[in-house]
C-alpha cells in the first residue's frame, strides 16, 4: 500500500512538473539579441538600485557615439555624475567614477551587467518567456544575475530589473 502510494504520488509530481514546464518555454542560450538596443539616439532611464534595506535612485543615460562606442553615464537627478563608462569592441572603459563606487567588484558587476544589457551574443544559462516578462539568467552563486524585461515590444519596454540574488542587489530601469 505504502509502495503504491509512493509510486502514485511520484507519478503525479512528475506530471505536475512537466505541465508547469510546458507553459514556460525554455529557449536555449543561442538567443543572441541584446536586451536593450542602443543606437545614436540618447536613451534615458530612471535607475533605482536596492541593496539590502538601502535604496538609491538616479538617471542612466546611454548612447552609441559616432565611433560606435556605447557610452553609459549615471547621474543623480540633482545633477552630479556617478560614473561614466564606455563599451567598444567588447572592451569596457571607466572614464570616471565616484570614489565610493571605485571597488574592483563593483566595477566588475557594472561591467558584466552592462555588457549583458547592451551587447549581442551574450551567454545566458537560461532564457524563459513568461506572459509578463522575458527572463535571462547568467552565472552561478555569487556571480548569478537574473535579467527581467517586462513587456518587451518593438525595442520598447516598461521596466527592466537585474537581480543579483546572492549579493542582495537589485537594479531597476524604467524608460524616461
Amino acid at each position, binding site marked *: 500500500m505504502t509502495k503504491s502510494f509512493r509510486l502514485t504520488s511520484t507519478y503525479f509530481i512528475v506530471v505536475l512538473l512537466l505541465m508547469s514546464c510546458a507553459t514556460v518555454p525554455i529557449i536555449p542560450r543561442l538567443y543572441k539579441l541584446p536586451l536593450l538596443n542602443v543606437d545614436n539616439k*540618447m536613451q534615458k532611464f530612471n535607475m*533605482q538600485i536596492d541593496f539590502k534595506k538601502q535604496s538609491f535612485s538616479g538617471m542612466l543615460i546611454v548612447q552609441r557615439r559616432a565611433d560606435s562606442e556605447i557610452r553609459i553615464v549615471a547621474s543623480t*537627478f540633482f545633477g552630479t555624475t556617478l560614473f561614466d563608462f564606455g563599451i567598444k569592441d567588447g572592451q569596457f572603459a571607466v572614464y570616471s567614477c565616484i570614489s565610493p563606487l571605485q571597488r574592483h567588484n563593483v566595477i566588475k558587476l557594472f561591467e558584466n551587467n552592462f555588457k549583458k544589457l547592451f551587447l549581442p551574443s551574450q551567454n545566458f544559462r537560461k532564457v524563459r518567456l513568461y506572459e509578463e516578462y522575458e527572463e535571462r539568467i547568467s552565472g552561478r552563486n555569487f556571480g548569478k544575475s537574473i535579467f527581467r524585461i517586462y513587456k518587451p515590444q518593438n525595442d520598447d519596454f516598461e521596466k527592466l530589473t537585474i537581480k543579483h540574488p546572492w549579493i542582495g542587489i537589485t537594479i531597476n530601469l524604467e524608460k524616461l
Partner: protein
Amino acid sequence: MKYILSTIAAVIILHSSLLAQMKKIEDKQAFEQKLEEATKTVKSIESGFTQIKHLDVFDDDITLKGKFYYRHSNRICLDYTGSLDYIIVINNDKLKIVDNGKKSIVNLSANKTMKEMQGMLAACMSGDISQLSSEYKLEYFEDTKNFKVVVTPKSKAVQEYIKDFHIYFNKRDMSVDKLRISENTTDYTDYIFSNKKFNSLQNDEKFSVN
C-alpha cells in the same frame, strides 16, 4: 564702401559682446549689503525651475522641469514634474527622496561631505550665501542684468563632486535667476528659476521628511 560697412558691423558686434561679458565687482561690500537686505526679508520662495544637464560626451542636453520651494534657512524641496515622478526634500540634516512613490530618508549629519554639500546647495539655491562657511572661495562679477558669484569649494572631498557653483542674482530683487553647478571644465547642470513668489508658502508640508 563694403569694407567700411563690414568694419562697422564688426565693431558693433565686438562692442555688444564686451558689454554682455561679466566684469569683476569693484565694491564687494555694497553687493554683500544689498544681498543681505534682500535675503533678510525673504522667508520662503516658490518658483518653477528648468534643470538642464550638459554632458560633453553627449550631443543633446537633458532637460527636466519642476517646482522649487525654499523655507529659510535650511529647507528645500525640488518636485520634478512631467514624466518623472521624483521629489527631493532637504530639511536641515535630513534628505528625503521619493521616486515613483518609493521613499528613502538619509541622515546627512552622518556624512560630513554630504552635510557640507547640502549646506552649500541650500545657500546657492536660495541666494543666502552668508550661510557658506569659510571653506569656500567667493568671486564677484556683474553685467547689466545680473550679479554673479562664483563659489569654489576648498575641500578636496567636495571638489571630487563639484568644481564650482555660479550663482546669477537678478539685480532688480537679488533673487537667484540661475544656478550653474559645474562638475568639471566641460560638464555642468543649470537650474533656471522662473515665476518666483516670495513669502507665499502657507505651511511646511512640502518639507516633511516623514
